[in-house]
């Protein structure tokens, strides 16, 4: 294989990876709190300094705020500002998410569709709604009056790009995240948390469609590069046949 063919083939692989990432974004466009990601690439250089194309180095997540929308669920919540909700799986496993679509379960805990439980909050059976006040104090409205449920804290990471996605809008912490510290929602310059709202994903469908088109064209261009390299090998081959 010629250098050109190797480089062009790596370009095709790169655009395939691009498409995969865009498809994942589109598939999660309706997941509350989902953050769009994009594949990142680096040039591959051989020891002899000739370029050998490109290779994927990972994906980069755009932690940009999504729009807040009123939701029909009384226990849904949305973060306006930085930070993640801390959720547990009941066995001590912890994860971090911006997806606040929770429902009350029989034991009073708030769980999302994947079964993750919002840490530190238990809602009484007769609660009609929940509120977050200053200092992250969560209160429930019940027929007996308002009742204090606990304190809500948000997790923030020194380097959120180190978070590992475990599907949808949920992440696990890794060593690459750096130190985690807790944010108090409702403070003057901190994030605010609102019940009865959901954060929409920050995926733009139109933008994704345009990215698909350009990835497709770039794939085609690289395929032409492979074809040209192949054609030139054929010409060289015919020369030796005389």
């Amino acid at each position, binding site marked *: 294989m010629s250098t050109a063919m190797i480089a062009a083939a790596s370009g095709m692989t790169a*655009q395939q990876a691009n498409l995969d990432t865009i498809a994942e974004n589109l598939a999660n466009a309706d997941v509350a709190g989902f953050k769009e990601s994009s594949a990142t690439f680096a040039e591959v250089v051989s020891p002899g300094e000739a370029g050998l194309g490109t290779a994927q180095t990972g994906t980069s997540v755009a932690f940009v705020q999504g729009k807040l929308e009123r939701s029909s669920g009384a226990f849904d919540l949305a973060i306006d500002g930085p930070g993640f909700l801390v959720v547990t799986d009941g066995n001590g496993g912890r994860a971090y998410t911006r997806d606040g679509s929770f429902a009350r379960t029989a034991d009073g805990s708030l769980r999302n569709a994947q079964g993750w439980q919002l840490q530190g909050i238990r809602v009484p059976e007769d609660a009609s709604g929940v509120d977050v006040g200053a200092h992250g104090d969560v209160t429930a409205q019940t027929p007996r009056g308002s009742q204090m449920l606990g304190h809500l804290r948000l997790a923030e990471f020194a380097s959120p790009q180190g978070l590992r996605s475990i599907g949808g809008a949920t992440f696990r912490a890794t060593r690459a995240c750096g130190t985690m510290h807790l944010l108090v929602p409702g403070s003057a310059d901190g994030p605010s948390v609102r019940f009865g709202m959901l954060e929409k994903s920050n995926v733009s469908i139109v933008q994704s469609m345009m990215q698909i088109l350009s990835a497709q064209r770039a794939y085609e261009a690289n395929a032409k590069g492979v074809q040209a390299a192949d054609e030139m090998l054929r010409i060289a081959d015919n020369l030796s046949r005389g």
Partner: protein
Amino acid sequence: MDGMAWASSAMAAAQTRLDIAAENLSNLSTGGYRRREARGSLTPSGVSVAAQATNGRVDAVSEMIDVLGAQRAFEGAGKVVSAIDQQRQHAAEAARVR
């Protein structure tokens, strides 16, 4: 330098041109990548092409044109090689007839 050496250096130069265009195309989505340019020069041992760094971004259209250009240049130089080869073959046959 004979014609055969010239034509084969032209083929190698066209191959390098394609390598550079393919390298640029493959890095269309690489953040921070700067386009390389094929620079041709005449040397005592024929034509030669080398990659030169630029500050520009990759433009798919101009790289595609480079791919086509390199392919045709390779084809053209290949034709010259076969023409010279045929000529030499004729000359050898003529010598044998005599």
